[in-house]
């Protein structure tokens, strides 16, 4: 409603004055074919952008904006947009009201200066906003001009060789101890699987002997014993051989009395009997 009242003023072809000269008609660049209006409206980011355009095209000092012609030109656009029933953002109308208000305040005689505030130019706030907006507009263009990833540059990212060393779970000896412990708690196996430190070394030698037999087929008994090894180790090794034999994991062979004893993996009992 109030918008209508404001816009009547624009509809009346008031002479437009620019630097004291009356413009008989609008500058050429202000003529917009109606079809192009929509595109034109799209081209502006809002009322501040449109005002800046008008100011820059007219080549007037932003610090001394001639309010009357600027307001008139601005209203011509707004009215044109309304006539073509283009969806006009409310901000455009708000700005129209603001321009008219500034214009009218400038027509009033200035009150005697009582404070700096009251003596301020009615255009000051508009000018401040226009300058800040223009500064940000320039900054946005400068930002856009910086070469950026995926437009001017690609990030380099070479494939990493096969994950041969894919991160493996870490295990400590204590983890194993705890695991064994849990087993003991959940199954009554303690009695059957009593393992002492000593027995463990026997079992280690058992594995070692089996591994050697796998590699070498068969070994002379004395080859199982490293010459010059500590006596304790010899004993453990011997116990390992006995335990392996007892568990039927190896065979001890002697062709004849006093011949060398050979050790080999146990042969399949079934195969032997056939």
């Amino acid at each position, binding site marked *: 409603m109030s918008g209508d009242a404001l816009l009547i003023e624009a509809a009346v072809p008031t002479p437009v004055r620019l630097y004291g000269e009356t413009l008989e008609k609008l500058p050429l660049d202000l003529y917009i074919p109606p079809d192009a209006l929509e595109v034109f409206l799209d*081209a502006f*980011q*809002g*009322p*501040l*952008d449109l005002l*800046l*355009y008008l100011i*820059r095209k007219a080549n007037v*000092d*932003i*610090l001394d904006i001639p309010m009357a012609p600027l307001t008139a030109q601005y209203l011509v656009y707004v009215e044109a947009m309304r006539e073509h029933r283009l969806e006009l*953002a409310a*901000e455009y109308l708000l*700005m129209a009201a603001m321009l008219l208000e500034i214009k009218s305040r400038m027509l009033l005689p200035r009150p005697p200066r009582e404070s700096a505030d009251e003596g301020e130019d009615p255009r000051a706030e508009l000018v401040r*906003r226009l*300058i*800040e*907006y*223009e*500064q*940000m*507009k*320039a*900054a*946005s*263009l*400068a*930002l*856009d*001009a*910086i*070469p*950026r*990833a*995926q*437009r*001017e*540059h*690609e*990030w*380099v*990212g*070479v*494939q*990493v060789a096969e994950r041969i060393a894919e991160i*493996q779970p*870490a295990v*400590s*000896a204590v983890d194993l101890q705890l695991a064994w412990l849990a087993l003991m708690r959940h199954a009554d196996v303690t009695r059957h699987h009593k393992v002492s430190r000593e027995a463990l070394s026997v079992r280690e030698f058992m594995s070692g002997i089996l591994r050697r037999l796998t590699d070498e087929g068969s070994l002379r008994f004395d080859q199982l014993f490293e010459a010059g090894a500590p006596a304790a180790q010899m004993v453990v090794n011997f116990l390992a051989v006995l335990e392996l034999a007892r568990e039927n994991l190896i065979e001890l062979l002697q062709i004849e009395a006093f011949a060398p004893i050979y050790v080999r993996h146990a042969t399949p009992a079934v195969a032997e009997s056939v």
Partner: protein
Amino acid sequence: MSDTPHLLSPNPSDIKRILEAALLAAQDALSIAELRRMFDEELEASVLRRLLDELRDDWSGRGVELIQIASGWRFRTRADLQPYLEKLKNEKPPRYSRAVLETLAIIAYRQPVTRGDIEDIRGVSVSPGIIKALEGRGWIDSVGYREVPGRPALYATTRRFLDDLGLRTLAELPPLAELQKVMNFDDAR
């Protein structure tokens, strides 16, 4: 008790070879601290920095350059090759509208700001889509709320924003135009 094999202390040329491979293979920029981790931190940061400078010089003139950005060091292709590399891409890089770019500029230069602050400066309402586009790119995020009614979110630019623009700090952003310059600024539209 570690699973990783014991590594011999590499000599400087080995170190450069390792640094180069690590930086070429990294999915993100690597900081000095991260790079040092490869050498069990035994390598002095100052030595590492010198080697990185050397590496950057070694690569000058090639199609790929080593740059220092906000989050560390990273290799990127040079701008002059982009016309060729673009032919390999299936999608064009997004072109941002003026509304998005102006919003980004306001957040970059005036951060932290609310959507209301942005609207005040631009003189128009800012659609949620604009904020979403910038958040989606990882260039801005919400860093808090202004304690006024409605508790609007405060937006700031991210390290990714600096990285993507090849900058180390916000101070490397183009300086804001001086008032005088602004006044002579002719609309490029």
